[in-house]
């Protein structure tokens, strides 16, 4: 962005500002939950089931109580009277959705490896860790359900004996005449894609500290959470602590990616233990423990069909999903896959869309929102399907996309799924990406390598994605049976010295809200960037908020900051007019200074006004002596980032190894507040999406054991495994918020997975490969090549047999 693009009054917005948070974070001067030390604090360790499904016939904590340092130990039965129901699921997607009662500590049945059955409290975390080995639990094994298709079959074993089937729900939405779309189709492409299960890897594992009332009736619960406000409400309901007597604090939180968008057993258990024991307690998860007890992501089987007319225009799309809930429904587990109902059509125009999703219980760790939450799965499905269709139709994949995408002059566009994309320019992002990528040059190299039968083949992958984020407006969420709204709150306080406090209901855990919100408030109020402090993540400070997830914080929370600032300025204008003895209409406001039109000497600053209001010696009669303002905003629409991502891979056809050669990401996220923060979000997002494509998978064996039970077996990529990303932007402002911004937190993850897999398949297409199971590890690539070779050999021999063996 050049300086000319920036309005002269915008001294901060649109410019890179080094993050205010970073000096503290990178030097470790932080307050992670696990760093908290309180007087008399005890340490909690959980006894977790080693079996995926079993009846618990006896739990004996007596030997554990004899261990050094042990203060208390409880079974599920001991604590059961504390729960006012189970852990919450806030998204009952259908009226008849099956939702098993999810107690924080299981009593009579365990339903996944890691399900907790007892808790030990000791003076040190080491003593607690040793003592849990002395809790004796008798398990009576029950049949284990791991496979979704088998789970839905008649007479299937049950993942939960309290339910009558493994189906949680079937949710369906049909837009347009889907039968007509397919009946008259000139071509139909059908595929099954597997979204493997993933484990979110926030750098900080989960941690909880709870302090019982000291000087008041208030409990304080610190948690490494993305959602302190939601947690406060839900814990109050789950544990019977009145909401006004519970303060929840999310101190420094080291990433979440959705895994900390939840209400977890350990949070409820620590609250109940603090209440029962009357002393502070702490629980901190180990990495391997987190692999079992923190939510997983993805895990879908996607059956997709797309119908085209003779001009290669999309007529209709049928989507049938099986979505693995795992053993329980966590906060938004059932709702994650149904976001696909609005996203499978992506950037394309079509007459009809049929979407059906079956939520399935298995004896695995529950799934829930993981960076992108429903949109990566949908984007993968449609972008892979378009490439497959292009291959079958014999057209260039870009040509097929262009023929079907929404043209920039067609915005705002009402999609087949019934939502309105406010803005976008797919042509511009694509043109820029192709140029940066040297698309034509790479296609030529690909042709040369194919011609030369090079053992290392080149593949080019395309992803022209869009997504919906900033989950709002509240009315739409209500229509989807979501348990809450999509609004956000901000307060802006002008202090007597002219400094500013911004209180936000968003809850950053690495995103840099303190910096970005400071930039916004500084420009709106005309104060210095360094004169703004942003407070967040503590329900005693930010009393109202909907927290941070779904790329919502800037588009909704940033909007609230703007609104609150506007109110401050409006009040200040009134005071300034009073002090300058001028009409409000005659005042101009520029960079913090009010001046009277035509009287250049008659000026005052917003800081002077703040001091005057503090003194309150002289202010307008029809207002209170305060500039402080609150705003709660509920946007009229989601935001729809989009972009074109291009990936080149070199596939070693002898070993199956995939080398990422180059990656170009051109994102359109509307206006940008801080380009460097955006760059960081895009890089991290790409790494996480590429991780799904090439590296990561949570693998269970048939007995429901997590085979990838530690970070040794779960292949998360490091910087050394990734190319130098080429990133750029086009800028088509959102029209539904005053900043013109769209979300960027998930875009890279949503876009990159199909780009990489399309590239891998493209490299191997001449060998007859039409799909590679994710992650595209050497083993999976090698097996895809081998089965294509076997299929072609079988095809040849069948052909030969028909032709009398001449082949």
């Amino acid at each position, binding site marked *: 962005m050049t300086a000319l693009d920036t309005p002269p009054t915008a001294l901060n917005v649109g410019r890179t500002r080094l993050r205010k948070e970073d000096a503290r974070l990178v030097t470790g001067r932080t307050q992670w939950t696990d760093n908290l030390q309180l007087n008399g604090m005890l340490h909690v360790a959980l006894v977790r089931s080693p079996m995926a499904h079993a009846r618990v016939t006896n739990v004996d904590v007596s030997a554990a109580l004899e261990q050094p340092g042990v203060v208390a130990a409880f079974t599920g039965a001991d604590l059961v009277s504390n729960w006012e129901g189970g852990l919450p699921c806030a998204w009952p997607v259908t009226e008849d959705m099956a939702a098993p009662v999810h107690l924080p500590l299981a009593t009579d049945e365990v339903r996944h490896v890691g399900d907790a059955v007892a808790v030990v409290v000791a003076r040190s*975390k*080491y003593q607690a*860790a*040793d003592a849990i080995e002395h809790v004796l639990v008798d398990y009576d094994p029950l049949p284990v359900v791991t496979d979704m298709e088998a789970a839905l079959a008649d007479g299937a074993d049950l993942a939960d004996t309290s339910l009558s089937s493994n189906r949680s729900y079937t949710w369906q939405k049909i837009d347009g005449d889907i039968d007509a779309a397919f009946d008259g189709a000139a071509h139909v492409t059908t595929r099954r894609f597997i979204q493997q299960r993933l484990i979110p890897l926030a750098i900080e594992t989960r941690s909880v500290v709870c302090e019982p009332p000291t000087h008041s009736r208030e409990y304080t619960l610190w948690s490494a959470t993305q959602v302190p406000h939601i947690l406060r409400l839900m814990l109050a309901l789950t544990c019977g602590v009145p909401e006004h007597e519970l303060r929840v604090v999310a101190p420094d939180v080291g990433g979440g990616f959705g895994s900390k968008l939840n209400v977890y057993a350990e949070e409820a258990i620590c609250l109940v233990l603090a209440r029962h024991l009357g002393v502070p307690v702490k629980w901190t998860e*180990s*990495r*391997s423990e987190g692999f079992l007890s923190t939510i997983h992501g993805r895990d879908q089987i996607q059956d997709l069909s797309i119908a085209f007319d003779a001009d290669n225009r999309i007529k209709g799309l049928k989507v049938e999903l099986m979505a693995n809930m795992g053993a329980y429904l966590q906060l938004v587990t059932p709702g994650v896959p149904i976001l696909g109902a609005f996203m499978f059509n992506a950037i394309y125009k079509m007459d009809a869309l049929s979407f059906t999703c079956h939520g399935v219980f298995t004896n695995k760790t529950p799934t829930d929102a993981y960076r992108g939450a429903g949109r990566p799965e949908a984007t993968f499905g449609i972008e892979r399907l378009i490439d497959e269709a292009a291959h079958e139709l014999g057209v260039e994949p870009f040509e097929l996309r262009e023929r079907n995408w929404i043209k920039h002059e067609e915005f705002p566009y009402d999609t087949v799924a019934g939502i309105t994309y406010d803005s976008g320019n797919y042509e511009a992002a694509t043109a820029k990406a192709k140029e940066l990528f040297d698309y034509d040059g790479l296609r030529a190299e690909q042709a040369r390598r194919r011609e030369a039968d090079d053992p290392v083949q080149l593949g080019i992958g395309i992803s022209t994605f869009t997504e919906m984020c900033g989950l709002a407006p509240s009315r739409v969420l209500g229509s989807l049976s979501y348990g809450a709204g999509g609004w956000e709150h901000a307060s802006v306080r002008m202090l007597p010295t002219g400094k500013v406090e911004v209180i936000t209901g968003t809850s950053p855990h690495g995103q840099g809200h303190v910096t970005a919100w400071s930039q916004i408030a500084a420009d709106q109020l005309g104060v210095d960037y360094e004169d703004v402090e942003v407070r967040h993540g503590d329900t005693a400070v930010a009393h109202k908020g909907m927290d941070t997830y779904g790329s919502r914080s800037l588009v909704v929370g940033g909007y609230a900051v703007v609104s609150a600032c506007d109110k401050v300025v409006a009040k200040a204008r009134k005071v300034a007019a009073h002090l300058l003895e001028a009409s409000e209409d005659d005042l101009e406001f520029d960079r913090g200074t009010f001046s009277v039109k035509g009287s250049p000497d008659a000026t005052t600053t917003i800081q002077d006004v703040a001091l005057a209001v503090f003194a309150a010696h002289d202010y307008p009669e029809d207002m209170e002596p305060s500039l402080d303002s609150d705003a709660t905003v509920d946007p009229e629409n989601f935001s729809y980032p989009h972009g074109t991502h291009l990936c080149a891979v070199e596939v070693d056809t*002898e*070993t199956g*190894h995939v080398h990422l050669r180059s990656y170009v990401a051109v994102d359109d996220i509307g206006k940008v507040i801080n380009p460097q923060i955006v760059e960081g979000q895009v890089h991290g997002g790409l790494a996480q999406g590429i991780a799904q494509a090439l*590296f990561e998978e949570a*693998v269970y064996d048939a007995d429901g054991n997590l*085979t*990838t039970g*530690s970070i*040794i*077996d779960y*292949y*998360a*990529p*490091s910087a*050394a*495994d990734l190319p130098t990303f080429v990133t750029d932007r086009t800028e088509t402002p959102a029209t539904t918020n005053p900043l013109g911004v769209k979300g960027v937190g998930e875009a890279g993850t949503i876009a990159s997975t199909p780009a990489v897999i399309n590239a891998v398949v493209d490299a191997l297409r001449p060998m007859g490969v039409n799909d590679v199971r994710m992650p595209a*590890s*050497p*083993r999976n690539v*090698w*097996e895809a090549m081998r089965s294509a070779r076997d299929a072609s050999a079988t095809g040849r021999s069948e052909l030969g047999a028909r032709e009398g063996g001449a082949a």
Partner: protein
Amino acid sequence: MIPATFDYIRAGSVDEAVAALVEHGDEAKLLAGGHSLLPLMKLRLAAPEVIIDLGRVDDLRGVRDGGEHLAIGAMTTHDAVIKDPLVQEHCGVLADVTRTVGDAQVRHRGTIGGAIAHGDAASDLPPLLLALDGTVVVQGPDGRRNIRAADLFVDYLETSIREDEVLVEVRVPKLVGQWGWHYEKFGRVAQAWAIVGSCALIKGSNGTIEDARVGLTHMGTTPLRASATEATLRGASTDAIAAAAEQAAEGTSPPSDLNATPEFREHLARVLTRRALTAAAG
């Protein structure tokens, strides 16, 4: 990730370490760099009651010229091996393979003796020691003895070092003559154990191979050599490499895990051995 309780003994000398081993028997474990032992303890897959730390036994660090061989103290870190002038001059393959071990932190803490005594078939150094016909020196209550690499690796994470013995020295021959070498370490990410590795050394001139050694990583319960490939190449021309590499998986019994079936490992061993030999013959 908290290990079970253990007692800690800091050995001031090899004699002290041996005495502690004699006293505590199979309840004790020697701690070298700790990069295999400590993760196992944190996962509670290992729970030794006594840890005998060799970290302050300074005699066990450093590289000595032993005439026809180099004698490397067991507690010499990987990083020190890589940077050692004697290693670079006389056994460059050791420096090159060691460079692929773990990441920078592992190489600064992990030791050559620890990596070999752990006996992990998926580890990079054991098959190299085997291919080099190296030797380890161990010290027990009755003094020192040498164990040839061929006799060292017995089974999965099991060596012929006795419970009361300390590995004190690793001996590798000086490579004399026209040797070329290359290690093909194949993995999914930049820093991990090899799914399969093949380390080839070729001695020869004018396209004729005098001697060929191939060490295979992660192709069985122990490190292995591709003996059939080696035999085919001795005295042959470099043109024979491709055909000889086809024999690389003979006599192996590779494990099955998430990264590879036995069949895929055998395939990889052939491809990687061909590439390693071709590069070594360079």
